[in-house]
């Protein structure tokens, strides 16, 4: 059992950061996730997966959005409580070096991209970051993101922060104009599908982090299966990060 370092901190409306003490032997890779058993009882029953937002000096961080039973309980956690999680799990992002990369996050899907940006920066990449959100009040830790990026743009549906519009439109524009060595995306399925399409037209490799419903997170149940041009893949063990060009997007529900 790992200990919760501090009470969940609200970093944007309805979004919380959780800091968990983690053994130094289990350093996560960007794009990996942890699978949390929210309650010790049987309701909620199945574990909840969350991407690693950050890892530093034995502290693992996630950012979660309260949307249901489990995250509602997590919001009320007190510091010092034990957190029952399995992980880090899954395959993360590939890390390029000395390259020019575009990172696009949508909503809470920005979470795994922060840790990714940090690690990519260490490898001397030139980072362009597009932070998409519905509205300014849902944007968390913006300055931290900005600090990791060479170019940073926020886009909101309602124009309350940064540009008004959709991250997909801006991403498409950037991808057309610049020759990125790699594009990384995490967000709603429709957003990832659109950006994967833009990247593939431009011939840029694209990695997406899937966030579909997981039954177990460890490969036992086939509940997370995704259709790809290379056959069926289990998002929890073959992903969550997958090559965006092989996913059969129209087979997915959002």
């Amino acid at each position: 059992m790992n200990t919760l370092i501090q009470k969940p901190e609200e970093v944007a409306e309805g979004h919380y950061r959780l800091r968990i003490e983690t053994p130094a032997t289990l350093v996560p890779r960007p794009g990996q996730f942890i699978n949390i058993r929210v309650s010790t009882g049987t309701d909620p029953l199945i574990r909840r997966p969350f991407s690693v937002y950050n890892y530093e000096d034995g502290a693992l961080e996630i950012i979660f959005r309260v949307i249901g039973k489990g995250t509602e309980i997590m919001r009320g956690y007190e510091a010092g409580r034990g957190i029952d999680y399995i992980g880090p799990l899954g395959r993360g992002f590939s890390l390029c070096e000395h390259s020019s990369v575009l990172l696009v996050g949508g909503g809470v899907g920005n979470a795994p991209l922060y840790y990714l940006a940090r690690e990519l920066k260490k490898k001397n990449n030139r980072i362009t970051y597009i932070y998409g959100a519905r509205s300014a009040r849902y944007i968390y830790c913006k300055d931290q993101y900005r600090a990791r990026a060479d170019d940073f743009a926020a886009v909101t549906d309602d124009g309350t922060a940064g540009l008004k519009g959709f991250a997909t439109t801006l991403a498409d524009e950037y991808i057309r104009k610049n020759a990125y060595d790699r594009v990384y995306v995490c967000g709603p399925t429709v957003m990832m599908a659109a950006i994967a399409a833009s990247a593939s037209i431009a011939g840029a490799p694209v990695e997406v982090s899937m966030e579909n419903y997981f039954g177990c997170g460890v490969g036992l149940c086939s509940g997370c299966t995704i259709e790809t041009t290379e056959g069926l893949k289990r998002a929890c063990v073959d992903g969550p990060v997958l090559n965006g060009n092989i996913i059969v997007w129209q087979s997915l529900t959002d």
Partner: protein
Amino acid sequence: MIDTSVQIGPLRLKNPITVASGTAGYGEELSRFYDIGALGAVFTKGLSLKPRPGNRGPRIMETPSGMLNSIGLENVGLERFLGEKLPFLLEHGATVIPNVAGHSIDENVELCAVLSHTPGIVAVELNVSCPNVKEGGMAFGTSMPVFTRLVEAVRKVTAVPLIVKLSPNVADIAEFARGARESGADAVSAINTLLGMKIDIKKKKPHFYNRVAGLSGPAIKPVAVRMVYEIFAKVDIPIIGIGGIADTGDVLEFLMAGASAVSVGTMNLVNPDAAMACVDGIAAYMRSEKIHSLREIIGVAHPTA
């Protein structure tokens, strides 16, 4: 050394704790959590001759203390099972019982014939009750004439112990246990998932593309215990008890209701160590209660004649 072994008809297992079909893959993932050779047996994912992609759309949904699944028997098919999955299991010392889930009587016959003549396979479990495929599947488990025809046909070609996995979606499960016994089955497993449904109130339609789905987990445990109890009371056939088992206390409940062994299912997904904790827990229980053989507790909840 405590003897935790149990006898299931002609089949002897080193202990009564197994992992249920569809919740243990082909043993690979669980082997990262513990020694799968220490389990009573591993029931592998429902197998068909050809690989199956399973169902489209959402496949899992949590429910209060349980879950609904609509996996649709996604599996690697017989060839890859024999070529890749079985060798892995055997190398890890697992006792392997494939779950057979053909579309038709012919497909089940062919699968059982091949599997039961494959070295290393100690028994086969015939799945007559998957709610998640359109043809076959549940019809085999809910219509008595179809059911007995299937079990008889499979029995003829099966050279190892035959376990029939019963559907709980019938009025009287003991009748089907009797039918299985009379058609030559060596044991029954009970229960498979209960038919359930989820309506998406935003979309105003069923959540799963297949509309219905299988309910499992702690929520179904009382139903499963009752069914095991009824079968034990009415039919002389060994039972493998399944349904919501989470810990040693649950295992004991099933044994006392009349099961000779049990399978841990949904709880593997929540707690991959769950089955191994039960293996240790049963040994500890036998030691502290000074039980020499699990025979002493199997069915003890029934009135003595």
